[in-house]
C-alpha cells in the first residue's frame, strides 16, 4: 500500500510535466488547428533559460548586492523564464507559423519540427555538448508520512503546476482575452470579423503555452537537475500524445490526460521492467485511440491535413 | 418491379428523429422530385439511401435486393449514382481524372495491374478513358478534359460532376440541388443536361430541388418533406396547389 501511494506521488509529479506541456499543445491547437511541434524544444529552452537566470541570480546574491532566500530565487526564476520563453513563443509563431497560416497544415507541422531542431542545435552550438546541472535553489527535505516518502520538491512541482493550471483556467474563463480565445476556438472564420484579430490572439496563445512549458522546464530542472539539449524531444512528443488523448483543444482534457500518461508510465515501471515503459505506455495509447478515435473529451470531428 | 423501393424508413440522430416513416418507389426511367424547406431532411434521405447513414428502421431494396448495410461504394457500384449539394470535387485532379476515377468498380486489373502495368491494365485504362471522353462530350465539357477542376467556371464544374456521377453507370441518379447558385444561362445549360440524361440515357432520376421551375418541368411525381415527414405527394400540379405544401413551403419562400 505504501509502495502504491509512493508511486501515486511520483506519478503526480511526472504527470505534472506532461500536463504543463500538453496544455501548450492543446491551446495552440484549439485556436489555430495545428500542433506546434517545436513545443517540446520550447520546454527544453525554458529549462535552460531558467538555468541561466538561476545561476545569474545566485551570482548576484553571492556577490552580496542583495540577499535573497532560495525559494524567492526559485519563484523569480520561474517568473522571469516564463516571460522570456513567452517571447520566444511569439517569435516562433511569427517566423514559423504566421507565413503558413493558409498553407496545408502538414507544412506547418514540418516548420514546427524544423524550428525544434534549430532550437536543439542552437543550444548545442551555444553551450557545447557539456551537460549542465540546475543549481540547487532549495534544500531537499523528505517527509515520512506513515512510510510514504514525500520530498518538498515533489510537493512544489505538483503545487506550482496545479496553481498554473487553475490560473490558466481562470484566465480563459473570466478575462476578456481568455473569452476572445475561446470564441476564436469555436469559430475561426467569423470571430475575426467581430474585431478580435487572429494576429493578436495567435501570438498570445503561443506566449501562454510557451510560458507554461518554461515553468515545466524550470520545475523539471529542480526535480531532475541534469539538463541536456535533447531532453525536450521525448517528453514533448509524449505530452503531444497526451494533448491528443485529452481530446484536441480541450484544456481540461489535456491536463487530465497529462496526469493519466504520468500514471500509466509510473505504474508500468512499478510492475514491469522499466525498459518496457515506452512499449506498454504507447500500446495503451494505441488501444485507446483505436477504440476511442477522438480522445476522451474531443468531438467526433475530423479535421483533415488538407493539401 | 420498381427499381428502387423504400418502405417505412425511419432514422434517428442520437435521439432526434430526422426521418420518419418514409416510403418511396421509383420505376425505371422515372423522374421523381423531393422538395421541402431547409433542414427538412432531404439530404439525410439521400445519405440513407446511398449507404452513408444506416437507417434505424425500414427496408431499402434496389431491383429487389436488400441494400441496407452495404457500404456506400457497394451501393454506388450497384447502380445508385449521386451528385452533392456542394459538388465535392477532388481539388487536385483534372476533369478527365475525375470521370475516370468514377469507373473504379469497373476495373478488374487488381494490384498486379496497378503495380506492374500489365496489358490488361493498359486495355482497361484505355477503355475507361474513352468512355470518360464520351461522357464529357455528352456534358459539353470535353474541351476541359486536361484542366484542373478548381480552375473551371461553376457551371462547368457542375457538368463535370454530372459526368462523374454518370461514369459509375448508374441505373438511377440522385441529384442534390444541382442548380443551386446558378446564373440563368447556367441554368438553361443544366436543364439541357437533364433532358439529355433522361432522353438519351433513359435513366431514372431522383431530384432534390428548390427551383420550382425545374421541378415543374421535369418531375413526374413530387414529394414534399417537412421535418422528416412526407406531408404531400403527387404530380407537380397537385403539389403546387396543395394547401399544406403552400403553407409549409411555398408560402414561406418565393417561387423562383
Amino acid at each position, binding site marked *: 500500500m505504501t509502495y502504491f501511494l509512493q508511486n501515486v506521488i511520483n506519478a503526480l509529479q511526472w504527470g505534472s510535466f506532461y500536463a504543463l506541456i500538453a496544455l501548450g499543445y492543446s491551446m495552440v491547437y484549439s485556436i489555430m488547428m495545428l500542433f506546434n511541434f517545436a513545443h517540446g524544444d520550447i520546454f527544453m529552452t525554458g529549462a535552460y533559460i531558467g538555468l541561466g537566470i538561476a545561476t545569474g541570480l545566485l551570482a548576484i546574491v553571492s556577490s552580496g548586492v542583495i540577499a535573497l532566500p532560495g525559494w524567492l530565487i526559485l519563484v523569480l526564476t520561474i517568473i522571469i523564464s516564463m516571460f522570456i520563453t513567452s517571447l520566444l513563443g511569439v517569435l516562433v509563431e511569427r517566423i514559423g507559423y504566421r507565413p503558413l497560416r493558409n498553407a496545408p497544415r*502538414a507544412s506547418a507541422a514540418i*516548420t514546427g519540427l524544423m524550428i525544434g531542431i534549430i532550437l536543439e542545435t542552437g543550444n548545442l552550438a551555444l553551450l557545447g555538448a557539456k551537460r549542465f546541472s540546475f543549481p540547487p535553489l532549495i534544500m531537499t527535505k523528505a517527509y515520512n508520512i506513515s512510510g510514504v516518502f514525500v520530498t518538498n520538491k515533489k510537493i512544489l512541482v505538483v503545487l506550482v503546476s496545479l496553481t498554473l493550471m487553475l490560473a490558466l483556467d481562470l484566465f480563459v474563463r473570466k478575462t476578456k482575452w481568455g473569452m476572445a480565445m475561446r470564441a476564436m476556438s469555436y469559430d475561426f472564420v467569423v470571430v475575426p470579423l467581430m474585431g478580435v484579430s487572429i494576429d493578436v490572439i495567435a501570438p498570445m496563445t503561443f506566449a501562454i503555452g510557451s510560458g507554461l512549458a518554461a515553468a515545466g522546464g524550470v520545475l523539471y530542472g529542480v526535480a531532475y537537475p541534469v539538463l541536456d539539449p535533447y531532453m525536450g524531444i521525448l517528453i514533448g512528443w509524449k505530452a503531444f500524445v497526451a494533448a491528443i488523448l485529452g481530446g484536441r483543444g480541450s484544456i481540461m482534457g489535456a491536463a487530465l490526460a497529462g496526469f493519466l500518461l504520468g500514471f500509466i508510465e509510473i505504474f508500468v515501471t512499478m510492475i514491469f521492467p522499466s525498459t518496457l515503459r515506452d*512499449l506498454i505506455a504507447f500500446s495503451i495509447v*494505441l488501444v485507446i485511440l483505436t477504440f476511442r478515435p477522438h480522445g476522451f473529451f474531443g468531438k467526433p470531428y475530423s479535421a483533415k491535413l488538407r*493539401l | 418491379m420498381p427499381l428502387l423501393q423504400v418502405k417505412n424508413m425511419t432514422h434517428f440522430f442520437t435521439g432526434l428523429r430526422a426521418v420518419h416513416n418514409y416510403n418511396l418507389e421509383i420505376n425505371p426511367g422515372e423522374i421523381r422530385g423531393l422538395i421541402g424547406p431547409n433542414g427538412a431532411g432531404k439530404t439525410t434521405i439521400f445519405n440513407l439511401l446511398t449507404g452513408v447513414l444506416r437507417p434505424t428502421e425500414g427496408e431499402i431494396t434496389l431491383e429487389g435486393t436488400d441494400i441496407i448495410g452495404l*457500404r456506400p*461504394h457497394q451501393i454506388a457500384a450497384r447502380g445508385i449514382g449521386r451528385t452533392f449539394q456542394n459538388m465535392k470535387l477532388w481539388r*487536385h485532379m483534372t476533369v478527365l481524372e475525375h470521370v475516370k476515377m468514377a469507373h473504379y468498380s469497373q476495373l478488374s486489373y487488381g494490384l498486379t495491374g496497378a503495380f506492374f502495368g500489365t496489358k490488361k491494365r493498359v486495355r482497361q485504362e484505355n477503355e475507361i478513358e474513352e468512355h470518360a471522353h464520351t461522357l464529357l462530350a455528352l456534358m459539353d465539357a470535353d474541351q476541359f478534359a486536361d484542366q484542373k477542376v478548381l480552375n473551371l467556371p461553376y457551371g462547368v464544374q457542375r457538368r463535370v460532376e454530372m459526368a462523374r456521377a454518370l461514369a*459509375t453507370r448508374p441505373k438511377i441518379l440522385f441529384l442534390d440541388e444541382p442548380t443551386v447558385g446558378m446564373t440563368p444561362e447556367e441554368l438553361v445549360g443544366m436543364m439541357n443536361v437533364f433532358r439529355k440524361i433522361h432522353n438519351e440515357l433513359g435513366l431514372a432520376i431522383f431530384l432534390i430541388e428548390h427551383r420550382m421551375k425545374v421541378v415543374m418541368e421535369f418531375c413526374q411525381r413530387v414529394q414534399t418533406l417537412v421535418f422528416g415527414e412526407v406531408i404531400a405527394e403527387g404530380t407537380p400540379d397537385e403539389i403546387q396547389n396543395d394547401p399544406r405544401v403552400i403553407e409549409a413551403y411555398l408560402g414561406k419562400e418565393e417561387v423562383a
Partner: protein
Amino acid sequence: MEVKKSNPGNTKRFSGLRHFFSGIPASGWLLAAFAAVLLEFYVGDPLTEILGLPKIPALFGIVIILKKPHLIPGAFAYVGLIYLLPIIIVAKITAPATNWVSEKLDRMPLWFSAILHLVLLYFVLEIWTDISDYRLLMLKLTLIAIMITLSLNIINGYMGEFSCSHPGFIALGAYVASVFTVGLFVNDRLLGHALLPQALGQFLFPIGLILGGLVAAVGALIVAIPSFRTRGDYLAIISLAFMFIVKSLIENLEVVGGPRGLGGQPDWATLPTVFVWAVLCVWTINNFVESTMGKALNAVRDEESAADAMTVNTRKTKMIAFMFGAFWAGVGGGLFAHVLRYVNPGTFGIKKLAEVLAMVYFGGLNSVFGSIVGAVSFNLLSEALRPLEIFKWIIIPVLLILVMIYRPTGLIAFKHFNVKKILRPRPGSKERV
C-alpha cells in the same frame, strides 16, 4: 497532354540556355555522362595532381567548398574539365546520333527502351563509384533514401495523411532482413551457427528483403485499420505510437541485441542489388500512382465521401496505401541494414522521422520526381554541409522552413513522372519553345 503554366520572366532569362540544350535526348545526356566518368577513370588522377588537389573530388567538389576553401579553384577546374565541358561537348556533338537512336527506341516497347537507358545509367554509376568507396556508400544510401522517401510520399503526399510511422516500418524491414541473413548464413554470437552455406545466401538475399517488406506491410495494418475511422491528427498519433512501440520492442528483444544493435550482416547489398531494387521501387510506385486505382488515393485525400459515392473502395485504398508504402520502406530498411552492416534501434527514432519527412516535404508532395529530387538533394546537401558539423542542423532546417513558406507543398509537387516523355527524342526543329 499537360497544361503548362507560362512563366514569362523565367523563360526569357533562360531561353538561350534552354534552346542550346533542348535538342538533346535523355540517351544523349547518359552517353555524355558515360564519357565523362570514363574520362575521370583514366585521366582523373593525373589531373588532380596537375590541379594540386590531394585526391579526386568525391562529390563534385561540394565537400571541399566548406572544408578546404583554398582548394576551391582546383575543384572547380576539375569539375569543369572532367564533367561539365565533356558532358556538354559530347551531348551536343552526339545529339543527331542519339536523337536517331531515341527515335528508333521510341517506336519500340517502352520497357525495352527504359531498360537500355537504365543499363547505361548503371554503368555510369558503376564507373563513377569505382573511384572511391565513399562515393559508393553515398550512392547506395542515396538510392535507399529515394526508396524510403517515395514510399512515405505514397502515404503523406498521395493519400495526404500525416503518418509518422515510417521509421518503424524501416526498422521492421531492417531487422527482419538482418535476422534472415545473419541467422541463416552467418555464424553469429546472438543468432547461432549458420544453417545454410553462405554461397547460397547471395541468391536468397532478395527473399530476406521481401520478407522484411512483408513484415513491415503487416505491421502497417496496425496504423491502416484505425485509419478507416479517423484521420488527420489522431492518425498521426497512432502512427507515432506505432513508431515508438517498434523501437521499444526491438530494444527489449535481447535475441537481436536489444539496444546494442545487431551487426555482422553479410556484404550483399552491392551496388547492382541496391540499384535494381531502387529501380523496381520507383517503377512499381510510379505505375501505381499513375493508375486509376492509385489515383483513388488522391480522391480519398481530397474528398473521401465523394470517392465513396463514386464506387471507390476507400478502406481497401487506405490499406493498399499503407501496406504498399510500408513494404517499400521495409525493403529499403533491409538494404540499409546490409549497406551499413549494423543496425541499432536508436537509428529509428524521431531523428530518422524528421529526416524522412524533410526529404518528402522538401522534394514535393504527390510527386515521384519530387521525391527523387528531395532525397538526392537532401543527401548531397547533408554531405556538403558536413564540415560545418552541428551548424548543418541549423542550415538544413532553415532551408526547409523557407521552402515550406514559399512552396508549402515542396519544390516539385504534383508533377507526373512520365517515363515515355523523359526518354523521347528531342530533335531541335520540332521542339516547341
